[in-house]
């Protein structure tokens, strides 16, 4: 007797298995990404990138969280040393952050991936040193590469073009000219520089803006990478400290700057044109473009003392992305990093006001816009190997902030300032 039922049951079973199996096989892989793109435009871009990657990789779920920078610096080591941490994370450069992580074996060396994907040429090769450490984390600037950046930064001066035009000012070519410029603006009854030291760290840029033109690439590199004989106590640094105090006395900064914070007061001061210039980093370009358009504000690098020298300015490749040593999917993570540091993303970064680390196609820029100015500034210093450093890569931030605030308030002399910084530098070795 032909029994139909067993066949039906078998058929149903097969259908069920067929329906379930692909779903089971297509188990989602989760890729956890932590970055520092908290501003609206940045955040949106981050989400878009994540979505595109997911679309190109079915079965992968990218879970992205944006952290404030300070926050990530504190949370990351703890998160990486435990399960459930991120696969891809923005890792701050420098000894205390990346160096410590390398020493503890929490992030992977990326050399093989760099070879595979051709990362070495994504930006000027000399810049990779900033993301490199020896395997035990002891020497900075050599050894394996642990992070891949996609943005660049340069600290320079934003200025209101109309105000310059009104006062007959031109972009200076030497540092002396720059100082004259400041005095001219002051004499005309305006505040030359927007600046607020309440948060502490903006003072680092202000100080370095004077220090870098007076110093040399070699001295600063040695200091940051802690090479033999590096010291903070030298004439250039002392002179820079003295000049900074002179600027305070000359009234180049707004009244009450010691009570002004960065995000609120200083930004508003500049936007309201209560100050003509603002020495800060290229990361503000996107905000300024958003608030004031592309035409009103320009950007230039503070010129060197000697016009023959390269224009040394703080800068570098932005916060790099690293891979957790505990990641279950390091290859996938590397692919993600390749994606967000690649040329397509570079174009997107430019659109949202970031400065991409990779050289930008000039045809994509409209000369005379703030964005173009920013890109040109970066090209200028990276092509001339005049990329400086953030001092807090070698000196603990809290100590540096405190010493700078004390210097600005004339609680300590420039000599004491230099000595204090040197002491903090040695203490952190």
């Amino acid at each position, binding site marked *: 007797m032909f029994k139909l039922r067993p066949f039906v049951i078998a058929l149903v079973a097969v259908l069920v298995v067929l329906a379930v199996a692909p779903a089971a096989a297509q188990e989602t892989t989760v890729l956890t990404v932590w970055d520092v793109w*908290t*501003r*609206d435009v940045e955040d949106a871009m981050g989400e878009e990138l994540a979505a595109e990657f997911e679309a190109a990789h079915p079965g992968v779920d990218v879970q992205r*969280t*944006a*952290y*404030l920078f*300070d*926050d990530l610096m*504190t*949370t990351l080591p*703890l*998160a990486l*040393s*435990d*399960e*459930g941490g991120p696969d891809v994370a923005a890792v701050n450069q420098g000894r205390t952050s990346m160096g410590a992580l390398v020493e503890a074996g929490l992030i992977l060396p990326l050399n093989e991936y760099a070879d595979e994907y051709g990362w070495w040429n994504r930006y000027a090769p000399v810049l990779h040193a900033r993301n490199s450490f020896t395997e035990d984390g002891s020497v900075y600037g050599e050894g394996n590469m642990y992070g891949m950046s996609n943005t660049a930064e340069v600290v320079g001066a934003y200025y209101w073009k109309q105000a310059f035009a009104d006062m007959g000012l031109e972009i200076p070519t030497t540092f002396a000219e720059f100082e004259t410029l400041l005095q001219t603006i002051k004499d005309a009854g305006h505040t030359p520089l927007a600046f607020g030291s309440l948060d502490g760290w903006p003072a680092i840029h202000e100080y370095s803006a004077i220090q870098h033109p007076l110093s040399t690439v070699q001295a600063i590199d040695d200091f940051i990478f802690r090479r033999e004989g590096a010291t903070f106590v030298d004439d250039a640094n002392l002179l820079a400290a003295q000049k900074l105090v002179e600027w305070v006395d000359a009234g180049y900064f707004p009244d009450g700057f010691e009570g002004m*914070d960065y*995000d*609120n007061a200083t*930004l*508003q001061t500049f936007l309201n044109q209560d100050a003509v210039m603002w020495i800060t980093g290229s990361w503000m370009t996107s905000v300024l473009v958003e608030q004031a358009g592309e035409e009103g504000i320009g950007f230039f690098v503070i010129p060197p003392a000697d016009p023959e020298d390269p224009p040394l300015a703080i800068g570098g490749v932005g916060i790099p992305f690293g891979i957790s040593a505990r990641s279950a999917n390091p290859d996938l993570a590397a692919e993600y990093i390749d994606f967000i540091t690649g040329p397509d993303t570079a174009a997107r970064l430019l659109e949202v006001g970031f400065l991409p680390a990779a050289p930008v196609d000039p045809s994509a820029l409209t000369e005379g816009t703030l964005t173009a100015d920013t890109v040109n500034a970066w090209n200028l210093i990276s092509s001339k190997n005049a990329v400086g450093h953030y001092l807090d890569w070698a000196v603990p931030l809290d100590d540096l902030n405190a010493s700078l605030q004390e210097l600005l308030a004339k609680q300590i002399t420039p000599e004491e300032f230099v000595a204090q910084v040197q002491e903090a530098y040695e203490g952190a070795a």
Partner: protein
Amino acid sequence: MTARRQPQTYITYFLLTIFTLLAVLPFVGILLLSFKDTSELGNGAFALPQVWRWENYVEAWQGARFGDYFQNSVIVVIPAVLIALVLALMSGYAFGTMRFRGDNVLLLLILLGLMVPFEAVIIPLWQLLGTLHLRNTYWALILPQVALSFAFGTFWLRAHFKGIPADLIDAAVVDGCGSWGVLWRVLLPLSTPALLSLIVLLFMWTWNEFLLVLVMAGGDLRTLPVGLALLRGRYATNITVMAAGATMMSLPVIIIYVIFQRHFIRGLVSGALKA
């Protein structure tokens, strides 16, 4: 003795009023600020808003993720307070009404935890939570606070139970209540003021806890205090939204406090003395 209306009385009332106003006005200021537009900032702290901008609240809730933080706070505080309450009731009862070997030693041990500042234990605690695989979970925020609240609550309720006449308990025992029954059926109804004030205190401390959350919680688990403090960057330029966030965060505590303040202060004053 009737109080005669001496001039002194008026002075006293006057001063009390001044001090109370000083205590409250800053909060009123921030409340008004939360409804203003940023352009109104120069108008004076106590000027009324031109338009009552509820948008600030909406933006704080969604854009600044205060809705998430609020949710996290609730998820952490309610279990933390409830669990601590039950555990403290039980142990406060034992310490307060029973005698047993080692009661002094154990009590001292519990006292120790109350005197050691939390900042001192945060680092090993973080490590411990990692070993237990609890990091970055709500339990990391709940359990340590339960432990601390338990210590305080034990002391608090012990002092309270000690004040209850022994005869009451004996009577209940004679009536056939087991020790469990004595607690729940006899003592509990008598303890409302002490319990209420304890609840308010524990709620307040857990709701406001900052350092623990700062260290243990990743972005998604943030509670209100940390969410508010780290609101730099995007919303740092928008003090009105921050004000809205600050108000939202303070309201639950203030509401609970106001409702129970009679019991709370009475309990705090007498309990603190005993503890």
